[in-house]
């Protein structure tokens, strides 16, 4: 199956996976400047792929606006989520489980 991702704004540094992504070429739809990007790891459906290298502290741009900032260097083609970025407002969300989104700061004792 062809792998595709959707770029909603031409200035964005991430795109959203429309299919599950594996290492390999991903076709870009929407307002993309280039026809494809090379995925370097597994990225789940609906999650974001870095369209270029993003350095620590740099803003993550989607819809042409900042949706958070990088907490580490993000190589092009890799998965952009809670493990490498955080909200500029919601401090709690960067501590959630990266796969399930479940809270890790509430004790179940």
């Amino acid at each position, binding site marked *: 199956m062809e792998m595709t991702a959707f770029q909603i704004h031409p200035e964005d540094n991430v795109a959203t996976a429309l299919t599950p992504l594996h290492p390999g070429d991903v076709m870009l739809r*929407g307002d993309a400047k280039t026809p494809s990007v090379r995925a370097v790891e597994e990225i789940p459906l609906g999650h974001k792929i870095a369209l270029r290298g993003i350095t620590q502290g740099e803003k993550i741009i989607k*819809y042409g*606006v900042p949706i*958070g900032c990088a907490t580490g260097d993000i190589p092009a083609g890799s998965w952009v*989520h809670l493990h490498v970025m955080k*909200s500029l407002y919601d401090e709690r969300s960067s501590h959630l489980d990266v796969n*399930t989104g479940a809270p890790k700061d509430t004790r179940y004792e």
Partner: protein
Amino acid sequence: MSERTWRAFARRDGKKGIRNRVLVLYTVKCAEFVAQQIVSRSCHPDVELAGFDGCTDNQYAVNLLISLIRHPNVGAVLAVGLGCEYVQPEWLSAIAEKEGKPAAWMFIQQEGGTAKSVEKGLHWVQKTLEKLRDTPRVPMGFSDLVVGAECGGSDFTSGLAGNVVVGRFFDRLVDAGGTAVFEEIVEAVGLDGLLIGRAAGEQAAREIRFTYDKALEYCRRVRQYSVSPGNFAGGLSTIEEKSMGAVIKSGSRPIQGVIKVSCPPPRPGLWLLDSTPDPYWMQFGITNPNDTEGLMDLISCGAHIVFLVTGRGSVVGSAVSPCIKITGNAETFAKMPEDMDFDASPVLRGACGMDELAGRLADAVADVASGTPSKSEALGHREFFVPYKYQEKQVAFPKACPQ
């Protein structure tokens, strides 16, 4: 798009309705069964139930009931009370009469119980349905139309397709002289600059600033933003990302100002609806408890038609104004064909452009405005929700402190 017209129902206040509903309103939970029996036994798609559980009244809830009575899609009102509640069915009926709408009210205790009350109500509804056949008709177009939009059960497609096509349609609606309303200020975190930059004037800018700050202050204080584990698992990484996916449904036109629940926009254009409580009751929660409340809030502001954008799928409809359900998820559309009205997914497949899709949505809106039932309407979904809440009628700027 501005070309299409349809035959509407003329109201005394000059407004135009796309439906001619008989609204059976109960004024306390104790009267709900009788009111509901009147509706179901009338077996008519234009007879609908709404009401307030009470018994203690609340200005916000009463305003909401009154907004439904005055709504242009409503042609007649029957208010059904038990007989000892705070909310007064007689006064609600009087408001409908002033609007030139056939109206009646009753107390179940005075009528002598369930069977007699249902009988009397049913008789009145049947007579009224005949009367409503003579409601004057007038031509109506997009410039007369008020459309509201909210999203619920969102997934990654909502912010890429469903909400985007609504935004593009809203631009066209506003350009055609119509009115568009969007809500969910708690899902606009990080976007204050963007929203205020779109304010139509200084007053609108002040209203948006105040409303945004009120919502953000609440979220900060309780350390809770309108984003959940399911959202993160689905690929959203931050509240800002979710917010932009939601705000994009407002399109790109200037924002005329902020309106409150039950207060229709004073003039056409794009408006932000603030449905959050005003500060001193803020501890009671700020986000809508369910999608139906959001739809009711939009309808209370005079929306003739409401959009519910849902990636994961939803089955709700709404009393008074038809609900058009939009999804950007092809799988959801295929899985729930009798519930979902509009498929926005072709734009993600590259099968059509956003402008073409917005044109198709405009056609769907004109069809529903012309009388074609929406999917939920045809199935008989007529959900409503009238809660207790504290809210001012205008943007509640804080009073200046004496120095």
